[in-house]
């Protein structure tokens, strides 16, 4: 069993719901976000836009696990890479080694509170009890491992049953995110990868990410016709721009 995710780039509508859901699920401090949105757009009369919803790729050959000097970063049997914050010394070797820049060092200035110096919200107080984040350590997406574990204990199936599925997948209104078992050839994500030419980011690093992308208009290796139509240099756009 190896948990994985497929991101349908043609469906993502940049609503940031996945980011909000993750913040709520894990009580993330304001200065840190586990998933991120990267939007790319070609210029010209008919611009092509692609939005990448990115997060930790839970690599099969994870450089972060390899370089961690304390063993704080570990890989589970189901492929999920997680950080034991009680073991992390905050050396940030994993942050530097991650080719996808999907790890965050939680420094004091990233956890100032939602309303710094004014009030601590009930949400923040609950977070301190339920999902404490240790300043001075490294964090990253864990595919909502605690939800998966709790769901499996109840006999639920991650990717099909909401209670056992990552929060970002549950909340995506465009159904751009699909979660499931990469080792199961009959799972929906295996089918999507197979039929819609799923691709990984930077396969040349031999990290074998568990997050795949499909239907990319920019950045997909197998998009010859699209590349011909959009030869201009792409420029970034975001919801605010």
């Amino acid at each position, binding site marked *: 069993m190896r948990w994985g995710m497929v991101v349908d780039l043609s469906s993502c509508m940049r609503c940031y719901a996945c980011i909000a859901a993750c913040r709520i699920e894990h009580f993330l401090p304001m200065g840190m976000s586990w998933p991120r949105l990267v939007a790319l757009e070609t210029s010209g009369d008919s611009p092509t836009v692609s939005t990448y919803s990115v997060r930790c790729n839970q690599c099969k050959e994870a450089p972060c696990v390899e370089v961690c000097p304390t063993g704080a970063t570990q890989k589970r049997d189901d492929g999920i890479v997680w950080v034991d914050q009680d073991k992390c010394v905050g050396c940030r070797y994993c942050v530097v*080694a991650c080719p996808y820049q999907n790890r965050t060092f939680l420094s004091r200035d990233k956890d100032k509170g939602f309303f710094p110096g004014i009030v601590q919200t009930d949400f923040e107080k609950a977070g301190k009890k339920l999902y404490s984040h240790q300043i001075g350590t490294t964090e990253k997406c864990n595919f909502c491992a605690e939800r998966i574990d709790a769901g499996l204990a109840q006999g639920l199936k991650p990717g099909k049953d909401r209670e056992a599925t990552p929060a970002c997948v549950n909340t995506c209104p465009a159904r751009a995110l699909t979660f499931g078992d990469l080792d199961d050839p009959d799972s929906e994500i295996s089918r999507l990868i197979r039929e819609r030419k799923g691709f990984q980011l930077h396969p040349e690093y031999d990290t074998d990410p568990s997050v795949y992308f499909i239907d990319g208009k920019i950045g997909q290796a197998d998009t010859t016709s699209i590349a011909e139509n959009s030869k201009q240099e792409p420029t970034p756009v975001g919801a605010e721009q």
Partner: protein
Amino acid sequence: MEAHEWMINYTRQTEWIDRRGIFLWIAFYAGGLGGGLYLVSLYFNSLWGMFISWLIIAVIKGGAHLLYLGKPLRFWRIIFRPNTSWLARGIIFVFTFIVFTAIQLAFSYWLPGSSGEIVFKTLGGIAALAVMVYTGFVLNSVKSVPFWNSTLLPLLFVLCGILGGFGLSVIIALNGGNVPLSAAETGSRWLLVINALFIVVYLWTAANREATGKKSVMEQMRGNLAPVFWIGIVLLGIVIPLIIAFTSLITGGVSSALLITGVVCEVIGGLALRYCVLKAGAYKPLVANVH
């Protein structure tokens, strides 16, 4: 929310140089300098040199590492994964150096010439070399930063460390520390030339490795890092010390003040080199085929 422009462009790493990352920069340089001084002091059999190198590694390097960590009180955990992590190996080398060299210094002071002294000098020398070389492997192991991903980097750091060691041994010689001044100057002179050539080779190979490597090199030569590169590495680290070294060679000797100025310039050059290497390390854009 932000557009995360950093992920679609060439992005330099920040964790190991910006803000508290400067402690890591100091720690990396101190490792090279201390290790280099120890090896040079072994060659000259200078007890003062060995003692100063022990102080540099135990106090400056060790202290800077502790100041850098997010959770310094857990520092002992850092040695648990030497099978895969170069940082774990490096800290083990540092501990080994501190212990072996402390024992060697005690032997050299109270029982000079004993077999214990010889054994611990050998062990200390091996540990010193390991302390010098491991920082290069720490960076070299990061595949996603092409500018670092070169086998030449550990060698560059070793050469730079030995150059600094010869430089400090000149100062020890000027203060009557049982080091022949002319030999220290000769070593310094040769290392300066070799180091300069090696820096050129390193930059040339990095620029030809791939687009991101070239970007890192151009950032140093023409970008924001140009003042540090040209003034710090080239002028202070190479040109001025070379002028002083060859003036001393031709005229048969220069004033102590000038020699000390040359050594200070060498140290600044070494610091600038480490700074540029760390600061110019850049990742490829997250999404390929964009640029």
